[in-house]
């Protein structure tokens, strides 16, 4: 099954079996391994990414459910080690990551929030990341990081022209 998608702002044609999970398309076929698999059943949010601007679990979506023109944003589309997005920088500075497995999903859930609501309250931040589990930080520093990012002028932006 061939689909024409926009992945991290680049138009790509993909060919995959329709029953393949979007998560497997990203990680195994496209080698975008920033997106993690945690529980594989929609409980932990480690595989979060944006589909047409909305955060979803990529472990619970099949390639067949995509349509031509769908826009996918993964953590690779936010920034990279040399060119962090403002949100990623705030995670680093506020200590919003420890072991790191939840971090890409947290970033994507936070990014989805800041696109729609650039100045969220801490309560709104907590709700926005309520579908993402972290077993290290206790969430406070993650919420601090997202709050800090929301105070920067470029919150909700991806880093352009990286690499």
């Amino acid at each position, binding site marked *: 099954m061939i689909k024409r998608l926009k992945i991290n702002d680049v138009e790509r044609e993909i060919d995959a079996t*329709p*029953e393949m999970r979007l998560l497997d398309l990203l990680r195994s076929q496209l080698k975008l391994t920033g997106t993690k698999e945690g529980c594989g059943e929609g409980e932990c949010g480690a595989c979060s990414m944006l589909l047409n601007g909305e955060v979803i679990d990529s472990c619970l*979506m*099949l390639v*067949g459910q995509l349509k031509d023109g769908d826009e996918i944003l993964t953590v690779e589309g936010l920034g990279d080690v040399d060119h962090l997005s403002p949100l990623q920088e705030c995670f680093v500075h506020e200590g919003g990551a420890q072991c790191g497995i939840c971090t890409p999903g947290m970033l994507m*859930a936070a990014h989805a929030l800041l696109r729609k609501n650039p100045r969220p309250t801490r309560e709104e931040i907590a*709700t926005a990341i309520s*579908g*993402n589990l972290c077993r290290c930080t206790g969430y406070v520093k993650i919420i601090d990081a997202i709050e800090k990012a929301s105070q920067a002028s470029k919150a909700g932006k991806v880093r352009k022209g990286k690499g």
Partner: protein
Amino acid sequence: MTFAYNRPPNIPEALALMTASPGTFPVLAGGTDLIVQWRSGIIKLDGVIDISELAQLRGISVTDEGVEIGALATHAEIAANGVVAQRFPSLATACLSIGGPQIQNRGTIGGNVMNASPAGDTLPVLLAHDADFLAQDLTGERWIPAREFFVGYRKTALKPQELLTRIRIRMPDTKERGSFLKVGARRAQAISKVSLCVRGRIRHGGVDWIKIAVGSVAPTPIRAPGTEALLTGKVITDSMIELARNSLADEVFPIDDIRSTADYRRFAAGGLLARYLREMTSRA
């Protein structure tokens, strides 16, 4: 064997597929339940009928009589709808208590209904509102009242060749107060131990009418007609609240499972009703 991934472009083609091999390929909407059941080995899947192309099943329309919600409306869309938020706040609350944002963005109300789990969070709300469900097959369509819809554990009144297309909820009384209350292990990403939707018209502390629906306390979501009858026409006093709490605890028939125990669920169901009744009297 190759996986039969069917993606019909319109309702008649979807119905033709369902009629050709009834029950063989499950209907796939948001996938937040079906894909989990498939991947965890609870069900075997040789193919699906993916209905996500069917634009006629989307959207929420408002009429003088009430709202009609397309089976493919997501929990996030329903909760964000202004009329739902204002007139059916218990439905909006229920939709926002399902999973987290990721699940609310993909999961659909039709999927929640057809999955027919006793713990489905929108189901007590639909039962308490006496919603109607529109089922369509190649020969026509029929409305099924909520009270006749959930016929057994994860079983609905739909025939294998019928597709759920729409849900109709009548506009509530402007003077009624409704509430959706849920007990889970945590606020997000938790399947209900007990959930309750109550609606009622309470005047000067007296109950004109009340409708009570409870989830996770029986093989299906259920109404509590005994407790509704007990409260109707009564003044809500502390002793009346105790009677109602005990009546509801007697009226439900929960089980022990991984999430909770039968005893706790009986107690918590009564407790949620007591909370609603106390809030109603403190406002009156």
